[in-house]
């Protein structure tokens, strides 16, 4: 075992852990447990908001699979990853103030709450709760596996032991601390991610003998590596551009991201967060993927893409520094897992249990239930991750596209188009998910683009046409909006 690498990593875990526990105090002192536990009391400032957005979004795929793909595909994959700069400003600008004002008016704590108040329909609630639970479960186990794998590759411990270490360090403070603990630890983790990628990029450039030397090594191996088209010249402009939808603008509809757009304190926090998150997302994505490409001439022949990042850190940096840098993917994974866990738990507690099973549950009952559900969910995901499938990026992207297809029009239309109604929302979610799964399974890349694009277009047609054709039927129900 490489203790010089492991010690800084352990130290990092311990610090994050204590911050989580510390912020749990707020949960105890707050008057509304639900608002506090699942939304941090809507009191996040600009910096914390930006960091929690970035680190929720930056996950195992941006730190492990992403650089791995860049290693294999060259600069074309960095180009693809830069579509994510848009998420930094687009999400907060588009959901923005309207979402903040309306969710406060509705007193909504979750995305499903918002949809429920907006559309006044049981079916919208059930449908969206189910899709959140299913898709985010698969996203969570992908992250969990990534976390386990990372500890495994660093320590040499067996996968199952590694998985349990990871689980214990995440679960405890999420269960106790709720959303605020997650947001504050996200801030630490986001900062670690930011600095870690910078240190590693500098280390890689030095080890490779400077950027010109690295680029000419790459060109000598295969000129395609320095073109926008990928190693085998098969990354078409349509395909790469379609990631603007999947990882760019579509991110607006991811419940774990959108819920953050209702957690901030005031419009100044929002303004500051827009600028900070653009800088941080772009910086991390550019650096991480460049690291993947630049690693290729230094460490040729790595076969498993996910291991590029840990291997290159240990190769080019002194061990203690590698330990600090490797806390970055750890941070990314943990913060994504936390966010997903708290979101799925809020869906079960608030959207399903309190809405339909027992609306009169007491404050103490809610408290116990929330922590209990969070624990049980955590344990189930671990069990699912014991026998993991191989492709983290695939699982993760599958859930992303599915959620985006399901939620984008009900959320955006719900905010900006008052004619949108429950029939439209239900049709749009069903069409989005069903076609996404069909495309992914039988006909990937319609028109040369990622299947999320076609699914979102079909979902849009469904939302608009069904909403318009049911205007009469729906009259009188929709007046609660405005």
């Amino acid at each position, binding site marked *: 075992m490489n203790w010089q690498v492991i010690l800084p990593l352990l130290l990092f875990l311990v610090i994050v852990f204590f911050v989580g526990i510390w912020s749990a105090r707020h949960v105890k002192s707050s008057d509304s447990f639900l608002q506090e536990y699942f939304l941090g009391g809507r009191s996040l400032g600009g910096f914390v908001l930006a960091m929690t957005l970035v680190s929720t979004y930056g996950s195992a795929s941006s730190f492990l699979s992403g650089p791995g793909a860049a290693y294999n595909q060259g600069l074309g994959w960095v180009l693809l990853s830069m579509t994510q700069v848009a998420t930094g400003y687009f999400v907060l600008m588009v959901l923005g103030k309207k979402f903040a004002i309306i969710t406060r008016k509705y007193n909504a704590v979750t995305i499903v709450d918002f949809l429920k108040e907006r559309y006044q329909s049981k079916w919208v609630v059930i449908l969206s709760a189910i899709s959140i639970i299913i898709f985010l479960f698969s996203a969570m186990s992908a992250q969990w596996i990534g976390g386990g794998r990372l500890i495994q590759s660093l320590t040499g411990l067996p996968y199952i032991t590694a998985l349990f270490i990871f689980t214990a360090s995440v679960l405890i403070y999420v269960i106790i601390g709720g959303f605020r603990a997650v947001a504050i630890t996200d801030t630490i983790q986001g900062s670690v991610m930011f600095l870690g990628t910078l240190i590693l990029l500098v280390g890689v450039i030095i080890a490779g003998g400077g950027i010109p030397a690295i680029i000419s090594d790459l060109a000598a191996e295969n000129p395609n590596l320095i073109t926008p088209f990928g190693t085998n010249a098969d990354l078409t402009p349509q395909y790469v551009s379609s990631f*603007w939808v999947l990882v760019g603008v579509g991110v607006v509809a991811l419940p774990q991201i959108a819920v953050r757009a209702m957690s901030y304190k005031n419009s100044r926090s929002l303004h500051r967060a827009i600028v900070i998150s653009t800088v941080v997302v772009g910086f991390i994505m*550019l650096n991480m993927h460049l690291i993947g490409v630049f690693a290729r001439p230094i460490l040729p022949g790595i076969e498993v893409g996910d291991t590029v990042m840990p291997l290159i850190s240990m190769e080019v940096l002194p061990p203690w520094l590698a330990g600090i840098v490797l806390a970055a993917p750890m941070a990314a994974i943990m913060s994504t897992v936390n966010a997903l866990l708290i979101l799925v738990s809020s869906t079960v507690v608030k959207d399903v249990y309190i809405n339909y099973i027992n609306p009169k549950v007491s404050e103490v009952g809610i408290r116990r239930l929330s922590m209990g559900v969070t624990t049980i969910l955590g344990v189930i995901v671990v069990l699912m991750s014991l026998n993991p499938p191989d492709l983290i990026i695939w699982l993760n992207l599958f859930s992303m596209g599915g959620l985006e297809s399901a939620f984008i029009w009900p959320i955006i239309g719900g905010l900006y*188009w008052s004619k949108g109604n429950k029939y439209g929302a239900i049709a749009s979610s069903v069409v989005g998910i069903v076609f996404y799964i069909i495309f992914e399974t039988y006909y990937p890349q319609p028109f040369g683009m990622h299947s999320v694009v076609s699914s979102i277009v079909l979902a849009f047609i469904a939302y608009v046409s069904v909403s318009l054709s049911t205007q009469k039927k729906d009259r009188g129900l929709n007046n609660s909006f405005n």
Partner: protein
Amino acid sequence: MKKEDIDKNDYRFKIANREALVGIGLVIFNFIWWFGFAYGLGGQDPNKYSYTFGLPNWFFYSCVVGFIVMIVLVFLAVKFFFVDVPFEEDEENEDK
């Protein structure tokens, strides 16, 4: 997105709508910049590439300069187009 559908009494929604349109405008600009440089300069034979700071020009302008341009634009947009509004009806007096 019709204007008359929105509660005209709430001035905040007009501001919010305008800011959402700014977001869409920025994304469109971002996309055109990114696509134009990447495939405009990168589409030729790699032997004919020119380089800036060691990076191929298409990459340098599309990803590095493009990123910096977006930061500047986002900063300017927020500074000059975005308006401070209260989120809760009773917030006006206490928090500003």
